[in-house]
């Protein structure tokens, strides 16, 4: 039988990693191998109760194992695949590009990017709006507390999580292959993404609601849909608008690069100037994007704050 009474002492000659490993091993042995006595709690009148097994330790071990693996990966890639010196050597390349953006800053170019920028913003607004409109009814169908059929809610949840795994850019790329280039596919891609995340966030809100009001309206002879509209929507409206604005913020940032895959807007210009190494033009676009995204995010945050 190993020593279970005292945890291993830290030995100066061993390194920390070995010490951590020894400690986990000790904890494991003490709590799982030496089962009943360690888990039995005896009260003063002789009554005893045995603590159930906790899986916390198990998960902790998995987590430690995983993190060890990833740390290893980084360490290896750091030393063997991309030597650190090479990375340092290339830093001037990056600073050169940035300084060119500033020194060659092509301000007269500004008026020509306004229209593509407006296209981008319109793409984000329309996409968010369409996605949000579809999200509300689907969130209702996905809410376990409102819909009796567990099959239906789970199927919808599965489809939603499938939709969420694919990024907006990939949707836009696929749509561009199928329907050709243009802002329309940018709108559709944004709408699909918004629909995916908003539906999830909404049904999670609905599932925590108190259903008293819903039951009351249903008991007046209204259908479930009408009861949902009359009793659930007023309760989630604030959250809904706030979440929609939040996804709009995400969409504005995402739609700026949608042009890369042919969805129109300012992304096309970004791609062009990057290819032709026109860093002065690139600087103007990035500066403008920075200002616009900053303004929109702040307006949106202000409205959300006002609403809550």
């Amino acid at each position, binding site marked *: 039988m190993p020593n279970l009474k005292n945890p291993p002492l830290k030995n100066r000659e061993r390194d920390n990693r070995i010490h951590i490993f020894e400690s986990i091993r000790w904890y494991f042995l003490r709590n799982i191998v030496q089962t009943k006595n360690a888990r039995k709690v005896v009260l003063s009148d002789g009554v005893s109760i045995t603590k159930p097994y906790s899986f916390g330790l198990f998960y902790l071990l998995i987590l430690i194992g995983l993190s060890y693996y990833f740390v290893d990966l980084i360490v290896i890639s750091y030393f063997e695949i991309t030597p650190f010196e090479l990375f340092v050597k290339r830093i001037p390349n990056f600073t050169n590009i940035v300084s060119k953006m500033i020194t060659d800053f092509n301000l007269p170019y500004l008026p020509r990017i306004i229209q593509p920028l407006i296209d981008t913003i319109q793409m984000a607004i329309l996409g968010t709006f369409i996605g949000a409109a579809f999200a509300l009814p689907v969130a209702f169908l996905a809410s376990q507390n409102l819909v009796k059929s567990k099959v239906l809610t789970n199927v919808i949840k599965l489809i939603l999580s499938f939709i969420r795994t694919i990024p907006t850019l990939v949707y836009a790329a696929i749509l561009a292959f199928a329907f050709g280039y243009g802002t329309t596919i940018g709108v559709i891609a944004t709408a699909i993404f918004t629909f995916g995340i908003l539906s999830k966030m909404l049904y999670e809100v609905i599932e925590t609601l108190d259903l*008293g009001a819903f*039951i*009351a*309206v249903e008991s*007046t*002879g*209204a*259908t479930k849909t*009408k009861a949902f509209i*009359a009793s659930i929507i007023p309760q989630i409206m604030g959250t809904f608008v706030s979440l929609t604005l939040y996804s709009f913020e995400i969409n504005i940032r995402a739609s700026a690069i949608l042009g890369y895959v042919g969805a129109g807007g300012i992304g096309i210009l970004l791609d062009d100037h990057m290819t032709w190494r026109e860093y002065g033009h690139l600087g103007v676009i990035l500066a403008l994007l920075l200002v616009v995204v900053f303004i929109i995010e702040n307006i949106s945050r202000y409205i959300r704050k006002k609403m809550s």
Partner: protein
Amino acid sequence: MIVFNNVSKVYSNGTVALKNVTVSINQGEFVAIIGLSGAGKSTLIKLINKMISVTSGTITVNGEQVEGLRGKRLRQYRRKIGIVFQSFNLINRTTVVRNVLASRVADMNIIATLFGIYSKSDQILALEALHKVGILEKAYTRADQLSGGQQQRVALARTLAQRPSVILADEPVASLDPITANQIMKDFKRINQSENITVIANMHHVDMALKYADRVIGINKGEIVFDGPSSEVNEELLKKIYGREITDEDIMFRDQ
């Protein structure tokens, strides 16, 4: 008229909630159902609205057999039956008048419901209902800003706006303080008398039941052990209904 004919209810977990209950309640009566918790009071109420279905026996309300009702016909039937809940069940984040109007959506089309477009007559009906329970001035206040008693009044107004022939009340005053509880019971009584609406209320507190109801039904372990005018109820009967002495907990006003 509500007629229970030999009604039994057994829940899926095997609990026998009601055993061979036969009772009839006339239009316009004020009936209080008393008994210990778990005796089957709530089951009786829920059966009338068909929130749950009978295991055996029949329930007939105004000539209509309740068990057979399904889908659209059930919803139409429910429009004539109002329910008031112990926990009020209001839509918190919206105005009082919208809460009352919520009972009108059953008759409206879905587009009007979605955009909250209520007809002039429905709006007047809702405001009149609020006036009847004495909180018209709160019509445009948010429901969650009201006190418990006021919220229960809104719930009562919501039920009135349904133009019901029966109001079912499941422990309507159990979560209110004694003074507010008395006021709410007075509202029930007034509405019962002026509109000739049948009121069937589950009451936890014996004194409130005897004070406001015309007729008392005592239930013990799923069976009706007493059914008669409230004036006939005495200590001995209560002992029979409760299966024990009446304690302070069964009474809202200790002095009475």
